């Protein structure tokens, strides 16, 4: 038995199909989770395998295997070839090599110190101190501090001449305090997912932020429920990430417009005719696909079909300019897209995914936006999300709300929720925060696809102000 060899596998198989590629994916992750100053989990995972993609009669098909012997790769190739040949008689689209560019190059995500320099002792010490910092009162019944650090390598080689590698250093964090009284329970949390090294976790500010977070959970215990009425809503960047993700990112995915997702995640209220014309939001709305934002969670040089990733405006001055679709979807739909054919791992085929979708900062300071509001609410940190399968009617909940009355922040309120319809909501955007209010967040949990995949996404945004939104709270 021998380990497979990239080049010889390509040479051996390339004359049996119209085109093929091999994508090797290896990810080593370490997860630690501390609850109430006790270590709940310490886990290491090594996930690796190979995805073989073949083109037969204009149809693209796949076989993934964790068997990385020469014979294992051969068997996977034969499976991909056999089923794809039969499937090509019933193919949904006809593809050519134009959808598989012969890209070459390397990408390394930025870091100061590799995450592998973090020993178990050091990570545990940081999480234990975080949990202690969350412990500001006997009423904090649950203190949660968790991190996952990952090193990911992707190598890609095709019979068409593509040859590229990408290496990622990733850090995910989550800190949470749950406060409980006789009458109520309230949770406050923070965290992020970024490309970066050990330095992300070594940031001493995390410990201080834990204390603030726990104190805010206690504050919520004493707070009134959020009132129910129409009012202006000022969303902090950690809620904007969810708003952008659900009501801009997903509806813009071209595979949803094409109906590939109809049976699972859903499709979109957008049609291909809307691209280049639709007034998606107010003139203040500018949204970009930015795969090169340093340290943002979903930066890369190539998507998983080898398409070189480029910065693009998706929405400019409120007008929808392009969708989030791969070269395959662009060909099928005849509209512009981006390099976003992405697979969650070695065992999934690439599909249209979000990556870094960012809202471009404007010019309003936070103080100016608050001062402009007669009746409104500042909302922070998502805790609930739901939207229909066309990505139109949404309802989102936040952990923490502060009322704005006559241009000033006044009372803290608990259980704030808001709901609306996508286009109406984005067209009610009346102020966009300056770069000073801009923050970038990432999430490892964007689910989609059949078979299903969770993928990493990043969303940067300033604070944004919306007018006349339906806001409501919990039951008293």
């Amino acid at each position, binding site marked *: *038995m021998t380990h497979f060899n990239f080049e010889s596998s390509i040479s051996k198989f390339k004359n049996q199909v119209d085109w093929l590629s091999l994508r090797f994916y290896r990810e080593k992750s370490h997860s630690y989770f501390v609850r109430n100053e*006790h270590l709940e989990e*310490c*886990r*290491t*995972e*090594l*996930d690796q*395998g190979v995805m073989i993609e073949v083109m037969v009669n204009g149809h693209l*098909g*796949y*076989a*993934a*295997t*964790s*068997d*990385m*012997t020469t014979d*294992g790769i051969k*068997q996977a190739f034969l*499976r991909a070839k056999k*089923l*794809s040949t*039969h*499937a090509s008689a*019933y*193919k*949904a689209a006809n593809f050519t090599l134009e959808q598989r560019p012969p890209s070459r190059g390397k990408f390394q995500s930025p870091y100061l110190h590799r995450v592998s320099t973090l*020993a*178990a*002792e050091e990570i545990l010490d940081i999480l234990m101190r975080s949990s202690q910092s969350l412990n500001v009162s006997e009423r904090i*019944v*649950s203190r949660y501090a968790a991190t996952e650090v990952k090193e990911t390598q992707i190598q890609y080689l095709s019979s068409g001449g593509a040859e590229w590698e990408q290496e990622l250093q990733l850090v995910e964090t989550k800190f949470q305090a749950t406060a409980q009284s006789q009458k109520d*329970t309230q*949770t406050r949390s923070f965290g992020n997912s970024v490309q970066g090294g050990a330095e992300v976790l070594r940031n001493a500010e995390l410990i201080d932020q834990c204390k603030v977070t726990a104190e805010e959970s206690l504050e919520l215990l004493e707070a009134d429920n959020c009132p129910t009425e129409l009012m202006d809503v000022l969303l902090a960047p950690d809620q904007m990430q969810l708003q952008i993700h659900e009501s801009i990112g997903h509806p813009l995915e071209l595979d949803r417009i094409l*109906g*590939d997702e*109809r*049976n*699972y995640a*859903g499709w979109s209220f957008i049609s291909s005719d809307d691209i280049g014309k639709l007034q998606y939001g107010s003139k203040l709305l500018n949204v970009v696909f930015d795969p090169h934002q340093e340290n943002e969670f979903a930066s890369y040089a190539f998507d998983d079909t080898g398409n070189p990733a480029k910065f693009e405006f998706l929405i400019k001055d409120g007008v929808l300019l392009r969708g989030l679709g791969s070269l395959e979807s662009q060909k099928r739909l005849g509209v512009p897209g981006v390099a976003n054919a992405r697979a969650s791992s070695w*065992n*999934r*085929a690439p*599909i249209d995914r979000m990556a870094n979708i960012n809202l471009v900062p404007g010019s309003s300071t936070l103080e100016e936006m608050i001062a402009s509001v007669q009746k409104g609410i500042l909302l922070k940190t998502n805790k*609930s999300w*739901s939207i229909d*399968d066309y990505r139109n*009617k949404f*309802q989102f*909940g936040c952990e923490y709300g502060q009322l704005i009355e006559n241009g000033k922040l006044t009372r803290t309120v608990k259980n704030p*929720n808001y709901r*609306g319809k996508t286009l109406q909501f984005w067209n009610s955007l009346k102020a966009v925060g300056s770069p000073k209010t801009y923050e970038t967040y990432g999430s490892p949990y964007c689910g989609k696809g*059949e*078979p*299903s*995949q*969770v993928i990493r996404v990043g969303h940067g945004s300033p604070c944004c102000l919306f007018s006349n939104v339906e806001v409501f709270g*919990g*039951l008293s």
Partner: protein
Amino acid sequence: MNFDFFNDESRELLKFISEALFQDLHADESLTVHFRGEDTEYVRWNQSKVRQNTSVLQRNLSFEYHNNGRRLSKSFTAQGVLEWDLITAREMLTEARKEAQALPPDPFLVEFTNHGTSTSEYRGHLLEGEDLIKAIASSAKEVDMAGLYAGGSIATGNRNSKGQNHWFANESFFMDYSLYNQQLAVKSCYADFQWEQNKFNESLNLATQQLEATNRPRKKLAPGNYRAYLAPPAISEIASMFAWGPLSYRAYKNGANALKKLQDKERKLSAQFSLSENFHLGLTPRFNSLGELAPEKMHLIEQGELKQLLVSSRSAKEYNALGNYASSSEAPRSLEIAAGSLSKSKIFKELGTGLYLSNLHYINWSDLQNARITGMTRYACLWVENGEIVAPIEDMRFDVSLFDIFGDGLLGVTDFQEIDPSVDTYFQRNLGGRKLPGMLIRDFNFTL
């Protein structure tokens, strides 16, 4: 790869690696080794054509390692050669020994014990290659179908250094699909261990007939309370929320249990509502990651009263409670909601004027402490007047409390139940499912 070959190779892999590691253990160490794997054909359909076909062969080994009261876990993808995988496993065991020295003792550690031996293997009869593609494409050529076929072998097992040895494998498939009439749709699923073309055709024919109701113009509803019948797939979507804390004892202790007020007897559910964990359904193995065998059937909510929550052995130790061999997540693995007395023939008559909700979508908590959920209607949801279907509705957002819809608002429960098999394919094709009735509800609150 056929089932026998995949199953035998996978069992041998778990046996070989676990026995070698058990021999390497020192006196103060113990180990449970887990296997999970699949050999699956996934075929994704759009407009009754093949969008993507993906064959996946994957095997994963993991172990939980105990050393002097310390605990950690490791996992890796098996590469296909026993000797290579043993090298990786031994490297990980060496790492585990070193890392364990840096960890504090775990006060809630559940020591491994021998929970016995079990083997369950179910061979199916599936279509392959050209037969598979043709069987679906030819039957669906007259309709606009989107969906996923997933079929093949799934295996899971664990062995521990105390002698425990559990194994579960099956060969099965599902064809989870929806049919479209422009933007309106009907959802269906054909799942079994043996592909029978006439059963798939029957499923398609039934869905096609149901789709006819969507030919009428759609009715736009105003927000407000409506009498509603929720078909079993809609109830299944709501029941999926029971995996997110409402039945978990740990969540109860940590303030994350939406049914806390039921446990604390501040709120009640209807006497018509009973919920159990029922492994008789045969959809998933009884053993959990520790190898513990849960009771065949556990009544969790009986006639509206909470009888017990799911308590893992770890929670039992932490909170000095009585455990019931729940999974580590304390989510139900084989949930059943009991049938009632509403017969199928009386559903529309009892509904009278209101909504027939076939499916719901994207449910989340809107107020967890009050068990309030929000979500959307999806697929063929219908407006009914005087027991007659009038029109499909435009999708509506709802916001309701479980205490209301399963409490005073629960008017009737059907005398039949349907199995909703798991079509979860995150990371790998997963086992499981739920058995659910339909329910008639007095005030289902729509907000948008």
